[in-house]
């Protein structure tokens, strides 16, 4: 093992002595200004709790109707999933796949992974897939576009209001709650701490066997 007392900035590669931070403090790279670490209070417990909440909220927000519109006596309601299906039916399958991945698939995978990882860390269970899950979660981060979707809903509402009155459903409220939960989740997840704990668990496991 080549464990060192040093650290490097991911964006400018400056060699650093890592600071021992207390909760509430932030460390920035002195050269490029990148936020290096920001320890959060009870990161593992909170991540675990938030992922459970997010996982439960996920299903109503995908399956329940988000909004409805009535034109000439005909009523239509839409869900996250029916938007994807509508694109598919118009032969726009590349766009449909992108929307499906960014608004349904990746968020679901991300929440499931953070549930699995924080659960294992919370109960101090080792698992040989922890490392893989953690890497996937890290790479998925950028491709989750729930808050962008929310902005899309707002713009669509403005356009639709010109045509006909709108009605909002429980799916939309669940979706807003889900966005709040995922935002809290990413801000409470302390990557550095998670990796340290994973390594610690693995060492303990190796010593025990």
């Amino acid at each position, binding site marked *: 093992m080549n464990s060192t007392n040093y650290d490097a900035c991911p964006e400018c590669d400056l060699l650093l002595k890592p600071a021992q931070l207390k909760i509430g403090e932030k460390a920035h790279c002195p050269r490029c200004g990148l936020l290096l670490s920001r320890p959060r209070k009870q990161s593992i417990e909170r991540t675990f709790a938030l992922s459970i909440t997010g996982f439960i909220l996920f299903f109503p927000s995908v399956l329940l109707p988000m909004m409805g519109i009535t*034109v000439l006596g005909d009523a239509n309601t839409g869900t996250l999933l029916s938007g994807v299906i509508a*694109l598919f039916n118009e032969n726009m399958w590349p766009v449909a796949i992108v929307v499906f991945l960014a608004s349904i698939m990746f968020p679901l995978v991300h929440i499931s992974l953070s549930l699995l990882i924080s659960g294992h860390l919370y109960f101090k269970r080792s698992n040989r897939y922890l490392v893989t899950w953690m*890497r996937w979660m890290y790479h998925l981060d950028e491709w989750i576009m729930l808050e962008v979707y929310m902005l899309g809903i707002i*713009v669509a509402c*403005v356009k639709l209001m010109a045509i006909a009155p709108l009605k909002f459903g429980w799916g939309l409220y669940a979706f807003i709650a889900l966005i709040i939960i995922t935002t809290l989740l990413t801000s409470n997840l302390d990557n550095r701490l998670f990796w340290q704990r994973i390594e610690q668990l693995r060492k303990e496991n190796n010593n025990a066997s």
Partner: protein
Amino acid sequence: MQAKTNALSQGFIRCDDCGFLVKTGNHSLSCPRCNSHLHARHPHSLQRTSALLFSSFLLYIPANIFPIMTVNQFGAGDPHTIAGGIVELIDSGMIPIGLLVLVASILVPSSKLIGIGLLLLCTHFRWQINARRWTVMYRIIAFVGRWSMLDIFMISILVDLVNFGEVQIIAGPAATAFAAVVILTMFAAENFDPRLLWDNQKNL
């Protein structure tokens, strides 16, 4: 206080996935903590980024020329381009929303194309620049990319809701091109390695 040195010049490689710092001497190519491949800098960063940037630049043309959606009312179609949709929003008095769409679907993608292009030129020609300012620019480009998907999500909602037989909204060919532009520029930003900006500076 020690002089500011790059980790690489001291023989350290930082794992891209988990942040573990590894001494390079023993030629191990995978990270001892998370098993991912170790790279001092993103592999073929400039080639990959420029290839992705070039493809998204080409796709940006059809994305702006072709209609992104068509409003079909009682048989008569009314195609909208990205710019046309914004003009319509602003004309009907929705100025803040119009500006929002203008920023997300025209200003952000085009400034991203230019920005990544500049970053590539800068690293290729080893321009002596204020590396901190350019790193901030890179950070903004990487952060802002996903917000351009706004238009695509809006279309998926409209196509689904407005479908009454006589009145329909149909997605146009520009939607595919535009989605591809957003995805490709996101990949381009991901493949660009901001550490190259710092490596090229002679007096740090």
